């Protein structure tokens, strides 16, 4: 339902999205994982038609997003990162207005508004001005406004940012329900756990480039089952790299004078060897952290940086 081919978007000298390609089918959830400023929101903005792609092609439901006009918009739902609500109206009025904006009328509109209020758990507060809602409730309503017209393609741009844990769980449940009903969902997040828990396929994006793409298992394979070992202390980066190069299945992901990051198999058992090798290179180790292979490990391996940096 969503096909993105070689999408590129620049703002002056800054390339926000650089040759990104992926696809997402009906009834599946594609996650775009990356840190803030990676190009996730720009990609969503291009798919939603808010920004014109610099180059490349985007189709939604088989129609080009630039030339598809109203037909594309009719099947597309967007839940933006920032709230997009009338806080001086109540929840039912917000849903009703946006439902009408997508052509719903009369009983169908009312039924749909009631259904979304139920889904988002806002039925009891439907007639209360939105400005009285908590942040989590406003997030849920924001989500509801994006799905009130039952879109077959849904773009979710970091919908859980700033949401309390309870509302977050509820939102993730809602997303799963929509996917189960056949909705094609594109989900951007910088929360690794969300991507791991929700997505059928994941694209890892950083600085506008898609660094890796596949299912969770496929991505884990990319890191080769290695653990990520972080060491902090005092290091000579050149001497440390040279000393560690002699060790088998040990990859230096990042090295500077204050920290080292290594990817290696069976790191727990090999810790004494690592300490001895680094000690011989003149390093002073103060703290050690060991991470099991995760998407974050992969992100670190691919970029040399942590996902939340």
């Amino acid at each position, binding site marked *: 339902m969503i096909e993105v081919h070689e999408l590129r978007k620049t703002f002056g000298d800054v390339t926000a999205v650089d040759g990104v390609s992926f696809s997402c089918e009906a009834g599946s959830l594609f996650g775009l994982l990356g840190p803030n400023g990676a190009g996730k929101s720009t990609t969503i903005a291009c798919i939603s038609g*808010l920004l014109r792609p610099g180059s490349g092609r985007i189709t939604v439901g088989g129609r080009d997003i630039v030339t598809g006009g109203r037909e594309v*918009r009719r099947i597309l739902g967007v839940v933006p990162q920032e709230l997009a*609500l009338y806080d001086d109206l109540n929840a039912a009025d917000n849903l009703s207005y946006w439902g009408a904006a997508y052509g719903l009328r009369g009983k169908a509109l009312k039924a749909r508004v009631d259904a979304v209020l139920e889904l988002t758990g806002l039925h009891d507060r439907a007639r209360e001005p939105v400005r009285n809602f908590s942040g989590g409730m406003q997030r849920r309503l924001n989500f509801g406004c994006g799905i009130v017209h039952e879109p077959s393609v849904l773009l979710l741009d970091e919908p859980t940012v700033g949401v309390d844990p309870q509302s977050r769980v509820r939102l993730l449940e809602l997303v799963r329900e929509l996917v189960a009903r056949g909705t094609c969902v594109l989900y951007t997040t910088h929360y690794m756990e969300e991507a791991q828990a929700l997505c059928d396929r994941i694209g890892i994006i950083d600085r506008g480039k898609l660094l890796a793409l596949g299912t969770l298992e496929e991505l884990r394979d990319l890191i080769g089952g290695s653990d990520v070992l972080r060491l902090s202390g005092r290091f000579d980066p050149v001497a440390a790299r040279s000393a560690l190069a002699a060790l088998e299945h040990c990859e230096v992901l990042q090295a500077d004078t204050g920290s080292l990051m290594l990817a290696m198999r069976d790191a727990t058992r090999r810790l004494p060897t690592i300490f001895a090798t680094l000690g011989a290179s003149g390093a002073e180790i103060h703290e050690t952290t060991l991470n099991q292979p995760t998407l974050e490990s992969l992100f670190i391996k691919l970029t040399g940086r942590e996902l939340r940096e």
Partner: protein
Amino acid sequence: MRFLLRSAWKDLRRRLADPVALGIWIGLPVMLGFLIGLANGGGDATPTARVLLVNQDDSDFTALVVGALARGGFRDEVLIDFEEVDLETGEERIADGDGTVLLILPADFGRALLEAEPVTVTLITNPAETILPAIVVEGLEIVREGAFYAERILGEPLRAIAAGPGAGLDAFDAVTVARIAVQINDRVVAASRLLDPPIIELDLGEDDEATAADEPADPARTLIGFLLPGMLLMSLLFIAQGMSDDVWTEKENGTLRRAFWAPRPLMVFVAGKLLAGLAIIALVSAIAVTGAAFWLDLELARVPLAVVWCAYAGAGLFGLFLLVAMLASSHRTANLVTMMILFPMMMIGGSFVPLEFLPEGMRAIGAWTPNGIALIQLRDMVFGTPEPRSFAVAALVLAAVGALSLWLCVLRARRFATA
């Protein structure tokens, strides 16, 4: 169409959700009317300008001029009272705001006037008043013109009178008096064809005495009558400017983006806003015009047309401000720019100072501002009958302003929503 009405209703409900703002808009014309009326000494009383006159010239001629001025007003609508004071008292009183202007006639005023020489008359206006000093200045301009022509026509005999009977004589001799009288008579007769054109008098057969005593003051000629249309237009301008801000609120709330994602054209969304604005302007106008009609004892039959006209003109003004707001690069800039347009429009468009009291050049410009155009017709609707041709031109101009603004808003909408 259905979604257009829904959009308008949505914006109206948002306005109703903020009753304080709505109340301020409705109360604005009432409050302005009350304050201006109060500041100028009451609603339907004929306004009076108090001129403090300092005569530093002891010539008989100047004494005559001062006496003539002090006899009474020289405008129909506004009375001007002259009060002779000494310089010190005059300066103190004008500094205390007790007086409209302080007029100082210099020592050689009479001689200079008779000899047609330049002379400087000092006029100090009361900064706390705006309209009445302007009226006095305009009135004195007329006096100055009159003095110039009087000197042209009667200069010689007047100079002879001012020179006095001659050394050692207490009075003019009979020959001199006769000569001066003949001179004056000749010149007045020569000028009379120009000064006194034939007058057609219409006798309505009414009892003049009774009519003069019982007839209420013509509301159009009271101060409130002068100011009312301008005040109403002023509040419409404030409302239009205030409502234009909402497009930035929607942009910042993200709802404008959401509207962009919907399959409806953005034009419907903008037009809905215009329709809601029109409804609010009509409501405020209805309250203000009906209130004014009761206050000034006007025919209620005039109210509906005036309200429709206000709503029509207000929608055009709203469209204009909406466009300006959408062209701005930020919310703050939008506020600043719309304010920068609002105040000059009020200044020269007859809201702060009635168009009739503006200098000729400004009046000509003001009469062609959108609010000035609306004001002239509104005044005719409330107090008289609009002239069909000028009404049609005004309606077309306002329609053009509104339509052009809306069209440009629609062109701008996508970029505005997505930027």
